[in-house]
C-alpha cells in the first residue's frame, strides 16, 4: 500500500466535527421544542397573579395553588365564616383560605383522567390486537385482493377524521354510544387500526416464516405457533405500534369535545374548562396538563428500548 493511498479517517463514518455540529443542532432543536413543556410545568407551580403577570415571570415563588385548584372545587366565603372554621386541615385548605375561599369538594379532574386512561389504553389494546392478527394474515396468507384491501385500510386515514364528525355524531346519538367509554374506544380503535395493520405488517414481514414452520413441524398448530413464536418476535413492533396508537388516543381532542360531555368525558376537553371555574386559573390548567403528560411519559420510557429498535427496524439487514 503506497503512502498516498492511506487515509487517516474512514470515508463512510462521519467526521468528529460533523458529528459535533449535528449533535449541537439536535440539542438546540430539543431545547426549543421543550420550551412550551417547561412553560406548562412552571405555570403549574405559579400563583394565578404570577401566571398572568407581564412581563412573564421566569423566576417566581413556587406555590401548590394550581394543583389544589385542579383537584378541588371552591366557594367564596366571608372572612367571619372562614375564621369560625378552626385551623386548616391541609396545605390546600390554607392556600384556599388566603383567597377568601373554602374547599367545597373534589373536582372532576380525577374521573376525567380515569376516563382518558380507560379509553386510550382500551382502544390501544383493541387496535393493536386486531392489527397484529390482520397484519399476520396479510403477511402470511394468500388473500384475494390483498393489495386492494390494504389500500382500503390505509385510505381510512387519508381524510382528516373530523371530516366524518357529523355523521359519526348522528350515528352515535342513534346508537346510544354518545358520551360512553365504549363509543370512544370503538372510535379510536377504528382510527388506529389502519395504522396498526400497516406498521405491524412491516414488522411481521421481517420475521422469517421458518420460525412458525419449524414450530408447526414440531407439533404446534398455526394459532399456537403464532402465540408462542410470532408474538414474542414481534414484541418490538407491537410496542412501537402501541405507543403510536396510545399517543393518538390519549391526545385526541376534536372527537372528545364533540362526543363526550359528561360521564365519558376525557381529560383533553376537560382541562380547558378549569379556567372558567376559578377565573383566570392558568396554574390549574398547567398542573392538569403536566399530570396529563405523565402516563404517556411512563409508558414511553418503559417501552423505549423497543421503540428505538422499532424505529430503525429493518433499516439494516441483520
Amino acid at each position, binding site marked *: 500500500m503506497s503512502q498516498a493511498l492511506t487515509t487517516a479517517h474512514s470515508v463512510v463514518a462521519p467526521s468528529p466535527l460533523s458529528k459535533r455540529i449535528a449533535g449541537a443542532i439536535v440539542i438546540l432543536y430539543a431545547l426549543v421544542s421543550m420550551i412550551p413543556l417547561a412553560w406548562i410545568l412552571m405555570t403549574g407551580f405559579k400563583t394565578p397573579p404570577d401566571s398572568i403577570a407581564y412581563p412573564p415571570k421566569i423566576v417566581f415563588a413556587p406555590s401548590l395553588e394550581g394543583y389544589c385548584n385542579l383537584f378541588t372545587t371552591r366557594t367564596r366565603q366571608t372572612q367571619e365564616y372562614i375564621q369560625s372554621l378552626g385551623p386548616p386541615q391541609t396545605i390546600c385548605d390554607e392556600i384556599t383560605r388566603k383567597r377568601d375561599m373554602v374547599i367545597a369538594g373534589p373536582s372532576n379532574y380525577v374521573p376525567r383522567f380515569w376516563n382518558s386512561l380507560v379509553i386510550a389504553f382500551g382502544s390501544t389494546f383493541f387496535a393493536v390486537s386486531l392489527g397484529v392478527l390482520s397484519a399476520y394474515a396479510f403477511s402470511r396468507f394468500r388473500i384475494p385482493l390483498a393489495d386492494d384491501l390494504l389500500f382500503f385500510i390505509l385510505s381510512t386515514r387519508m381524510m382528516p377524521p373530523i371530516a366524518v364528525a357529523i355523521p359519526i355524531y348522528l350515528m352515535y346519538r342513534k346508537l346510544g354510544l354518545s358520551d360512553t367509554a365504549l363509543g370512544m374506544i370503538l372510535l379510536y380503535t377504528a382510527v388506529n387500526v389502519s395504522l396498526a395493520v400497516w406498521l405491524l405488517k412491516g414488522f411481521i414481514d421481517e420475521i*422469517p416464516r*421458518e*420460525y412458525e*414452520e*419449524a*414450530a*408447526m*413441524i*414440531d*407439533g*404446534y*398448530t398455526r394459532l*399456537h405457533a403464532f402465540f408462542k*413464536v410470532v408474538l*414474542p*418476535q414481534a414484541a418490538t413492533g407491537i410496542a412501537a405500534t402501541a405507543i403510536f396508537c396510545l399517543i393518538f388516543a390519549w391526545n385526541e381532542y376534536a372527537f372528545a369535545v364533540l362526543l363526550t360531555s359528561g360521564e365519558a368525558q376525557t381529560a383533553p376537553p376537560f382541562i380547558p374548562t378549569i379556567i372558567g371555574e376559578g377565573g383566570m386559573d392558568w396554574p390549574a390548567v398547567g398542573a392538569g396538563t403536566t399530570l396529563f403528560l405523565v402516563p404517556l411519559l411512563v409508558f414511553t420510557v418503559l417501552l423505549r428500548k423497543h421503540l428505538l429498535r422499532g424505529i430503525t427496524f429493518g433499516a439494516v439487514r441483520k
Partner: protein
Amino acid sequence: MAEIRVENLHKSFGDFTAVKGESFTIADGSFFCLLGPSGCGKTTTLRMIAGLELPTSGRILLGGEDVAFKRASERDIAFVFQLFALYPHMNVRRNIGFPLVCQSVPAREIKARVEETARLLRIDHLLDKPVSGLAGGDRQRVALGRAIVRRPLAFLMDEPLGTLDTEFRDLMCAELRHLHERIKATTVYVTHDQLEAMSMADRIAIMNNGRVEQLGSPQEIYDRPATLFVADFVGSPAMNLIPLTGRLGKGAARLEVAGSGIAIPEMREDAPGEELVLGARPEHIRFDDASDYRGEVFGTEYLGTMQIVTVKVAQGRVKVKVPASLRVESGEQVGLAFLSDRLSLFDKSSGRALRSALHDGAAHG
C-alpha cells in the same frame, strides 16, 4: 424410521407449475439428495413432504401411510431450515427441547433427551447459552439437535449448509454424513451444490423445471448422465457437449466430428434423429499429437495438481483436464484424443442420452 414414497406429485401456484408429476422412492435409512438449480421445484417437493405446502395432486407415503394432505404437525418428521430458524428468544437448551415441549413430553425426559442429543452433537457445553451469540457451525448443530431430539420418521433438510462459509461447510458435510451413519435416519436433503450432494448422498435426484431428470447414485449420475441437462449441470467444469450431425444406428461404434473419426461405446439403440451431441468429461480427454481432431489452446486455469485447458475447436470450446505439470502455451495447436469407453451421446431434440455399451450392466435409473 421409514421409507418415503412420492407418487405422481403435482404442485401449481396459480398458472405456474412448480412440480410436474414426480415419483420416487426413498429407501428406509438412506441419504437422499434433491439436487437442481434454483426454481427447479426441489424445495417445493421437500416442503410438500414436510406438510408446509399441500400438493395439487399426488400421494406422499411416509412409512406406508398417505400423508399428502395431513398437517405438518401430524407427520412425524423433522425439518432443518436453511436459516436454521432457531428461536432467538430461547437459549440452546430450550431450542433443542422445543419439539418435545410441543408434544407434551414430561420435563424430566426432555432434560435427559436434550442432554443426550447435545452430547451426540458435541454442543453440551453450549446448552445454557443464548442462540444469538453462536457461531454458524454451532447454530447448525443446534438446528440438527432440534431435529434429532424427537427421533422422527425422517429428516428433511433444506440447504442447511447454504449460509455457512466454505471451510465450515466441508466440515459439516463430513459431520452430517458421519451422523447419518450413526443414527441411520431416512434423510431428504435439498441442495443446489453438487459437491454437497455428491459427497453425502446415497442417491441423488436431479431436478429441472419441476421434473426429476435422473435418479441414481452419485457415480451413476456422474458417469452416465441421462439427459443433456444432467450432463451440463453435474461436474465442474461441466461435461463438454460437442454438437454433431450424422446417422447412427444400433451397433455403431464410431462417429465423425468435423472429419475426424472418434470411437464411442457401441450403440444399443438407433439414434432417432441426425442432430446429436457428444458428451465428454474434461478428464476423459487428453492431448495426443497423433489425433486428427485438432484445436488451438485458448487459455489455462491452474488448479494445483491439475489444470483446465480450454481449446478452441471448430465446434466451439472444449475444456480438458490434464496434470498441472504439462506445459501448455496459449495459441499452441494440439490434437485431442477421447477416452472412448467413457463418452456419452445424446439426442439433441429430446435431450435424452442414447443407450450404449456405457450403460451395460447398470440398472436403468
